[in-house]
């Protein structure tokens, strides 16, 4: 394995490949930073441009873009509360409060460091554990995925600042919204009212753009014209030191583990992994209440996760020919177009390309760090301009980004609708984050539960049939129990403290 990998590095270090990898990463960071534009979109645009190249340079460019967008998305998330890509939505929770306090440089620095080290961690895990991860990917069945989804749901409490009730309302609403469309097993139309455009359900990307782009603009309009707290420039641009990072190594490890693990299991979806990692970091910390107020751990965990995802998704893509997310699906298409045959035999037939891709992933992560770190101050300057100039641009990006997700106007209207809904929810204290969690996890849970039951002939014991599933069930029950215990404890305290308070 390692001999092949060294060959891979040798291929990557050829001048043309290096240049393309660098350009791809830089382009990826830029694309990621523009709200509404995402990695699959950018890669699809690159696809026709790469026909004239050989397979390897083409794929390296795409890997660069893939890695770059994972970091780029966090910049507007931190500075404007509008994530540039769906994967960065969780980073805004703690990143934005940090920027508001004048610690923009710190927040962006942590995001960059978290992404880099998470990416490296995920890479190491992917490369050393390929056989293990591949067998996990193949053996994982629908029952396992359903249980992982339920675990994700129970972690919703981590995102609720004040009232558990509101958080639950958000989640259940999200779950309900996700049922619109065709039923996954019987293909019955649910809530479509005869509109065949709704057959595939509410477009997820559009809903995200609406909740995190448009709703944020509505909510923050009140900030325009406010004399913003002018913070001393040097303070704003201060970057974290490596010692600050080393203190918080646990977040990186958590992010790396979740990112690689969940990325390697096709069907769960990388979007969910950042939230689960954040929630775990919060639950394990000595000061959970601080999460959400703007602490570095809240930025490190999700950023490490989404870059570790890149390592994780490589495993099923290269060993099984199965994509883990939209970008890897297009990369697989690119491989086919270049004459490669992805699947179980790819390693034997094109081993040097596989190794070069893996090597390229690491180099791209390093480029991402270099580019990101040196450009932090420019991003701060640009994205902290007066909102009255920035918001119209964000709105256009949101509208066009939603349009390009399906190449039709329907998702744009969906985005605007959810923008309005998100705005009302936020103003009533229902965190939009919980609705998003419901929308992401709902289909995963329902599809997989029902297919699992179909496979087991309606035998519910299939959910505890193997030891991984038993572990997951224990985790679920444990988390639920702990939440209820905390709720009871908190309730008796709250009733003394917050009588008549508007929470």
């Amino acid at each position, binding site marked *: 394995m390692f001999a092949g990998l060294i060959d891979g590095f040798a291929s990557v270090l050829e001048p043309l490949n290096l240049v393309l990898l660098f350009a791809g990463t830089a382009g990826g960071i830029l694309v990621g930073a523009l709200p509404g534009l995402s990695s699959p979109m950018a890669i699809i645009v690159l696809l026709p441009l790469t026909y004239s190249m050989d397979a390897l340079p083409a794929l390296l460019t795409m890997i660069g873009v893939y890695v770059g967008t994972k970091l780029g998305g966090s910049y507007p998330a931190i500075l404007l509360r509008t994530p540039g890509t769906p994967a960065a939505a969780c980073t805004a929770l703690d990143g934005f409060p940090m920027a508001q306090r004048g610690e923009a440089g710190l927040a962006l620095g942590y995001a960059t460091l978290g992404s880099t080290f998470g990416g490296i961690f995920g890479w190491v895990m992917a490369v050393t554990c390929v056989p293990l991860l591949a067998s996990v990917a193949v053996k994982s069945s629908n029952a396992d995925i359903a249980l992982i989804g339920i675990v994700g749901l129970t972690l919703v409490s981590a995102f609720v600042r004040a009232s558990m009730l509101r958080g639950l309302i958000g989640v259940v609403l999200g779950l309900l919204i996700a*049922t619109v469309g065709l039923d996954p*097993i019987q293909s019955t139309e649910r*809530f479509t009212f005869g509109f065949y455009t709704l057959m595939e359900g509410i477009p997820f990307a559009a809903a995200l753009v609406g909740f995190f782009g448009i709703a944020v603009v509505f909510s923050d309009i009140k900030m325009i014209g406010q004399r913003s707290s002018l913070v001393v420039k040097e303070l704003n641009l201060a970057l974290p030191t490596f010692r600050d990072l080393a203190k918080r190594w646990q977040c990186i490890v958590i992010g790396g583990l979740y990112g690689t693990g969940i990325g390697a299991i096709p069907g769960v979806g990388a979007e969910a992994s950042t939230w689960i990692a954040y929630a775990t970091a919060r639950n394990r910390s000595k000061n959970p209440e601080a999460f959400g107020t703007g602490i570095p751990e809240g930025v490190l965990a999700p950023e490490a996760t989404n870059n570790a995802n890149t390592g994780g998704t490589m495993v099923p893509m290269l060993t099984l020919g199965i994509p883990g997310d939209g970008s890897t699906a297009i990369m697989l298409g690119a491989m086919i177009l270049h004459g490669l045959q992805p699947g179980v035999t790819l390693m034997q037939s094109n081993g040097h390309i596989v190794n070069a891709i893996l090597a390229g992933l690491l180099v791209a992560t390093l480029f991402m760090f270099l580019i990101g770190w040196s450009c932090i101050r420019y991003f701060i300057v640009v994205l902290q301009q007066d909102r*009255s100039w920035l918001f119209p641009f964000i709105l*256009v990006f949101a509208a066009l980004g939603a349009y390009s997700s399906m190449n039709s106007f329907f998702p744009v209207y969906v985005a605007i609708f959810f923008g309005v809904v998100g705005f009302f929810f936020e103003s009533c204290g229902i965190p939009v984050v919980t609705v998003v969690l419901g929308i992401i996890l709902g289909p995963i849970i329902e599809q997989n539960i029902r297919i699992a039951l*179909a496979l087991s002939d309606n035998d519910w014991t299939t959910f505890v049939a193997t030891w991984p599933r038993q572990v997951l069930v224990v985790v679920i029950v444990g988390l639920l129990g702990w939440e209820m215990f905390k709720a009871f404890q908190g309730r008796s305290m709250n009733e003394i403290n917050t009588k008549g308070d508007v929470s």
Partner: protein
Amino acid sequence: MNITVKEILLSSALMILALAAVLVINATGQQTRVADTDSLTFATLPTIYGCLLLLLSAIFFAGSLRRFLSDKHRDHPETTEDAETDSPSSRTVLTRIGLTLVVLVAYVVLLDYVQFLVVTSLFLFVMFWVFGQRSLWKMAALALLGGACFHGLFIYVLDLPI
């Protein structure tokens, strides 16, 4: 608008939504297309979610109502969101939000009929004005520049079929 009133409105809207969802999904005449192979039907989970939502929003409604009624009996300070006297009045904010929505929808509708560059630049210009900018030259310049960049990016590079 007082936040409690907003909550009451929202929770009642949610309750109505939940009830409607449960009723619609269970109405007779919903054709299944393929015979089911599992014990859950297409209506199971939506019904569960709908009932849960109904329950939760009812609790929310009750709580908000109670707060509303108890608030009536004692005067409360004006719920301003910020203490600085420098912030725009809530009336301005509301107007801006409303206008933003209207202009945004108009923009999307017009994209189908008017040339991209024109309508995008126009949108940017109008939005700058809504958000309080008044220097017309600066606004026009940025609007045109922005429109051109968007055109270059989305139409030329990304080949969007608008």
